[in-house]
C-alpha cells in the first residue's frame, strides 16, 4: 500500500508505477461522465480532450456552481464503453464497484473512491467547467479542479491485477463449499 500524490494529465510512467492496492490522491483537472455522457461520446466523441485524463464515474449534487456532494456511481453500468474511453487517452477511470479489467492492461488504471462518501469528496473538488449541460445535473460532464482528491485505491492496475476479480473469485469458491 504505497501512497502516491499525482497530478493530471497522467503520464504513461505514472500509470506504470501504480500497483493494485496502492493509495492515490489526485490533483488537477478531472472530468465526470456517467450513463448519458458515455452514450453521447459513443455516438459523437468527447466534447473535450481526454488525453491523460482521469474520468470520474460520478453524478454530482451541485448548487450554483458549488460541489455539494460528489462520490462515485456504479461503474458497471458504463463497462461497455471502457475500451473506447481508454482509446481517447484516458489513463485513469475513477468509480466504484469496478469493471472488467482486460482493457486496462498496459495503459490505464481503475481507481476506487469509497462509495457513499459524497460529502467528503466535495471538499476536494471545485467546478471549473461543464459540458453536455443539456443532460441535467447528474448526467452532465463536469470539469472539476481536484485538490488532493482521495484516498483512492488502485483496484485494477496496468499489469493485469484486478482486486475485484480476485475477491469475487474467492467469494464464489467460499459460497460453493
Amino acid at each position: 500500500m504505497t501512497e502516491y500524490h499525482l497530478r493530471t494529465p497522467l503520464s504513461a510512467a505514472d500509470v506504470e508505477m501504480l500497483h493494485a492496492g496502492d493509495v492515490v490522491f489526485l490533483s488537477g483537472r478531472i472530468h465526470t461522465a456517467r450513463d448519458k455522457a458515455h452514450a453521447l461520446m459513443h455516438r459523437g466523441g468527447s466534447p473535450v480532450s481526454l488525453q491523460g485524463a482521469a474520468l470520474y464515474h460520478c453524478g454530482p449534487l451541485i448548487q450554483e456552481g458549488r460541489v455539494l456532494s460528489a462520490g462515485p456511481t456504479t461503474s458497471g453500468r458504463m463497462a461497455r464503453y471502457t475500451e473506447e474511453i481508454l482509446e481517447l487517452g484516458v489513463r485513469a477511470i475513477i468509480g466504484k464497484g469496478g469493471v472488467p479489467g482486460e482493457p486496462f492492461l498496459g495503459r490505464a488504471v481503475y481507481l476506487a473512491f469509497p462509495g457513499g462518501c459524497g460529502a467528503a469528496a466535495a471538499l476536494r473538488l471545485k467546478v471549473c467547467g461543464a459540458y453536455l449541460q443539456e443532460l441535467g445535473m447528474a448526467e452532465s460532464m463536469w470539469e472539476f479542479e481536484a485538490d488532493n482528491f482521495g484516498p483512492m485505491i488502485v483496484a485494477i492496475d496496468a499489469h493485469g491485477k484486478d482486486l475485484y476479480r480476485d475477491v469475487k473469485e474467492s467469494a464464489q469458491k467460499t459460497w460453493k463449499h
Partner: protein
Amino acid sequence: MRARVVEATVRALQKAETSLPLWVLKRIEDAALQETNPIARSHLRFMLQNVQIAESTGLPLCQDTGLPIFRVQMGRDLRLDFDLHEAVAEGVIIATEKIPLRPNAVDPLTRKNSGNNTGPGMPDIILDLVDGAGLSLTAFPKGAGSENMSLVGMLNPADDPFDFILRAVAERAANACPPLFLGIGIGGTFDLAARLAKRALLNMPGTAPQELELLARVNRLGIGPMGLGGDTTALGVRIEKACCHTASLPVAINFQCWAHRYATEVIL
C-alpha cells in the same frame, strides 16, 4: 394538519440525508475496530469521517440522494381530510430545493427528469395502519447503487433459499456499496416477497438466530467494503416471512448500502 405533514416530510428528509441512525454508526465503528484488512479498515474510517462532514456541514452524505420512499404509520382512529400522498409530495419538492437534493426521478422510458423528485408513483408511501390515533412518517431515501442489485427469485420449494441469497450476494455485493444491510423477504407472492424485503430494511437489525447465521455466512464471503476484500461484507440481515403457495418459494433480496439512511418524525 396538512402543513405539519409537509414540514415533517422536509425535516425527516433533511435528517436522513445528512446523518445516520446511531445504531448504524455504531456498527460501522465496531467493524472499523475489528477489521483485519488494511484497505477495508481505511474505507470504513473514511465512511465515518464522511458522515461527520455531512453532519457538520448539513450537506447530503451521498450525492445519490435517492428516490423518495416513506413509511407512514397511521392510527386506525385517525381521519385525514386531505390527500396524504399530495402532502408528502409537496414536502419532497420543498426538500429538493432546500437541502438540496439531486433531482433523480425520471420517466422510465423517455428518461425525462421531472426536476423535483416527484412524478407518477413518486414519492412511494408504505402505509401501515396501527392502533390508536397517531401519525408518524419515516423518510427512507433509497439510492440506485444498492437498489439496482436487488432481485426476486421464484425458487423451487426443493431449493435452499439461503444458497440462493449467498450466491446473489457473492455476485452482486461489490456494486451495492458494501458493507451491506440485507433486507430479505421469504414467501408470499412475487410482489409480496419484494415488499417484505423492503420492510425488512425498515425493521433492521435482525437478532434471530437464522438472521445472525446468514450474516456470519455473508461475512465469510470476504467481499469487504466496496468489494475490495475484507472481513466486513454486511452489517445487518433481517428476514421477513409470509405464507406462500405450497408450489412456490419466492425469495427477495433488497440490498441496502452501508449508508442506511432513514429518519422518523412523529406528527401526532
